[in-house]
């Protein structure tokens, strides 16, 4: 049942190899297992007249602390397919990387760009096999010979195909904007603006989303990855520079101890550089 071009054919059925490892690790941590880094995100996408627009915020949180202010949540899958990821940062990163590698192999084998539906099928297959253990909620968008497509794949492997989507912790806010403003066959500028406003709503209404907005426009002629599309108006102004010039720390004493090395054995291997 697996695609013949995928690098490694996965075994049929469920693979719970890591479940036993996780259970063993849980015992060691005495119940306080380390929480994975969640992106606490707002991601959105919509299909417009000439292609697909994807948008994302750039904040990655580790509980209440912002771990990364300029996190890239729109991942490259293929020249004509990009994927926004919400959920556990490591899972979205690795899953999209793996998908991208497999599709590159497919492209090299067949000489054509992959179709969006193929990417979706591989993703769904992978995520379903792991029964929700991979915490990745993905919005996949792309343009191929059959048209402009936008899909979402949930962590348990459910797939939804819709003209506009939002995922992540800020999805309800973004979806409100999209529901109100979406029309079929929008022009490029209106589409970008709608996605920007949707992500902005997520940033304003959700604590886990924030900082800048990235936009990725995918059309037949090519891809326009605008990072950042909009910079946060709440940037902090640093009062001083944190670089310490030489001489900041006074040197009180200096002691030099030479390390004596003696040659024990010397071998010469000739390299054939003909």
């Amino acid at each position, binding site marked *: *049942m697996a695609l013949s071009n995928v690098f490694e054919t996965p075994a049929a059925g*469920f693979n719970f190899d890591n479940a036993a490892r996780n259970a063993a690790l849980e015992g060691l941590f005495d119940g306080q297992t380390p929480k994975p880094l969640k992106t606490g995100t707002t991601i959105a996408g919509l299909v417009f007249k000439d292609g697909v627009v994807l948008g994302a915020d750039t904040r990655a949180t580790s509980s209440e602390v912002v771990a990364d202010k300029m996190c890239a949540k729109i991942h490259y899958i293929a020249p004509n397919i990009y994927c926004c990821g919400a959920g556990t940062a490591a899972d979205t990163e690795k899953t999209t990387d793996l998908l991208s590698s497999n599709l590159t192999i497919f492209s090299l084998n067949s000489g054509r760009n992959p179709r969006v539906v193929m990417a979706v099928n591989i993703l769904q297959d992978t995520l379903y096999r792991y029964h929700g253990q991979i915490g990745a909620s993905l919005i996949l968008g792309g343009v191929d010979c059959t048209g402009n497509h936008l899909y979402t794949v949930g962590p348990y492997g459910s797939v939804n195909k819709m003209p506009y989507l939002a995922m992540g912790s800020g999805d309800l806010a973004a979806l409100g904007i999209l529901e109100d403003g979406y029309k079929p066959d929008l022009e490029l500028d209106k589409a970008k603006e709608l996605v920007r406003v949707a992500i902005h709503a997520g940033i304003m209404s959700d604590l886990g989303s924030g900082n800048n907005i990235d936009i990725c426009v995918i059309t037949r002629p090519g891809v326009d990855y605008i990072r950042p599309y909009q910079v946060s108006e709440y940037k902090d102004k640093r009062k001083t520079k944190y670089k310490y010039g030489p001489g900041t720390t006074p040197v009180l004493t200096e002691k030099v101890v030479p390390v004596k090395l003696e040659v024990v054995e010397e071998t010469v291997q000739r390299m054939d550089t003909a």
Partner: protein
Amino acid sequence: MLEETGPEWLSEEVKTGTTIIAIEFDGGVVLGSDSRVSAGASVVNRVMNKLSPLHDRIYCALSGSAADAQTIAEVVNYQLDVHSIEIDEEPQVRSAATLVRNISYKYKEEMSAHLIVAGWDRRDGGQVFATLSGLLTRQPFALGGSGSSYVYGFVDAEFRRGMSKEECQQFVVDTLSLAMNRDGSSGGVAYIVSIDEHGTEEKVVLGNDLPTFFDQ
């Protein structure tokens, strides 16, 4: 203060929280479903078509966990394709239902999805099969999903054998509308699929076109 685990619908499994129905008439079947997919209290998809084709004249209706149901439908679709090539004719509805039942029974503990299989074949005409928990039973009609509980009374009282295709379609739409009004996890639009020997017809009944009852 941001919750450690985040809102529950982020990590909760997406369920279809559905109303699905399939009824048999002389010469075919009519399947119907609502279109709401929920994750906790949040509606993830308000226009999902839960009637999935297994073959040209065999459809299944999905309920329970969205991922499990979708995957079973895809796997059985593939298996039926292979089977119909092997026997060199259209597969029987009973075969499709058996394939679904085999998966549902084998993975009974791990999965939570209930599929109703219905279709038309040359041998036995229109047939509806229920495959809940891995059983296989042919019934004149089958209901499923969280919304079905609210309409069992209506269906038990109003179902008659020997209805025409149009009467069946109206009956299905009425049932779905009643269930969607009472069940919080069902809603959106109604998808209807009618299958008979001449082919398959898919229809959507939008929200404002659904039949209304005394309180609307």
